[in-house]
């Protein structure tokens, strides 16, 4: 108690926050938002819709023991072990998209015809470590 009396007036220490640093990396592999508009790329001359598009992206560190939490296959943990124990030139697992959703696009063709098309794998929706 004596030490605490002189201690600066900081809130009582939150143990769960303290332990968190050991369990989950700060910059954890996660989905990040990114929004672009086709006019930025000057493609709005032939892309009629949508005007804006959010492809999203995955970024962050892959913790040493990935497993179920990231939907990673066993191979990812093996690759991590190889990187740490056997050969550092083998890259660490990366934070990459695991699932996508499609995008519908309306465009003008060079001959003036118009096409509506649904494209696969255009928006990242989930991340994983691989």
């Amino acid at each position, binding site marked *: 108690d004596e030490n605490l009396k002189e201690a600066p007036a900081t809130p009582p220490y939150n143990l769960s926050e303290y332990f968190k640093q050991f369990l989950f990396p700060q910059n954890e592999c996660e989905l990040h*938002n990114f929004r672009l508009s086709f006019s930025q790329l000057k493609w709005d001359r032939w892309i009629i819709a949508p005007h804006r598009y959010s492809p999203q992206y995955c970024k962050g560190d892959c913790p040493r023991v990935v497993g179920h939490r990231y939907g990673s296959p066993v191979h990812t943990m093996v690759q991590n072990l190889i990187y740490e124990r056997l050969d550092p030139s083998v890259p660490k697992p990366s934070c990459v998209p695991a699932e996508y959703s499609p995008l519908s696009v309306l465009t003008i063709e060079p001959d003036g015809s118009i096409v509506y098309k649904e*494209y696969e794998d255009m928006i990242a*929706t989930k991340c994983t470590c691989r």
Partner: protein
Amino acid sequence: LQHRAGSERLPGLLVAPGAVSSALNPVLQLPGGAGHGSALLPPLLKVLAERGPRRWDGEAPRLRPDARALRYMKRLYRMSATKEGIPKANKSHLYNTVRLFTPCSEHKHRHRDVVRGDVHSVDLLFNLDRVTALEHLLKSVLLYSFDTSAPVSSSITGTCHLSVKEHGFSSHVCPSLSHSLAFSLHFQVRKRKWVEIDVTSFLQPLIATKRRNIHMAVNFTCLLGDPQHNTELENAINMVLVPPSLLLYLNDTSEQAYHRWNALRHRWKNPARPRQRNSPRLNPAGDTGKENSQGQRASRQRR
């Protein structure tokens, strides 16, 4: 390339002709040792890159689409996709591509038929070069747009008759194709009317034999409302009978096209799936998609 996942299954589009990859604007070349520029581009870039080398910087040669056609396709887009551009889940159609062509040339002639009223004949030439080999026809439609913004006093109902015949093609080996049907038409005052007339049975054999220039003669007659007071109604219709566009509902089986039935089957096979990192975090520049911190803390506490 052979050890890379999926590279051997990539359609010809992704290993685009030399002219495309070499002429790609440097903006599109991926940084660092990207190696094969066009093979690593996302699908939409590849599709657009495939269309012509000068697409990015210079003004690519392009005809302006017909305004009515554009209005119709924007309406179709709003019905098929969400605001963010994602195909609506409640839609169960099999097509993933819809192409609209306006006639490249047309010759109209109109003659009076005592019994059937005015007969509108038009010869139409459609160029379907843009249809790719992997786009399979599901349905084709002649799209008529009746604009009743002309002074029409009340709503009108009538029966119309349309006949379509291959124009100028006759060979004893395979007789020229023809197709005719009758349908009823109901107009409201001051409402644009789109009428879709199914001509799939007429067009299917032509597309199946890879015919890309479709030349058809279309006869169109309409008997509307009360025959005694037909003149006013007929003028309203005659004035606005614009040559039709051709609408093709297609199923694109290429890799980059979205296959709705695959997505459904995937969901059935994996109802319960391991939890993955999927909560979007707001990056400093982004304005939407804020990270829901409670969600984050709750999930961490559960773990």
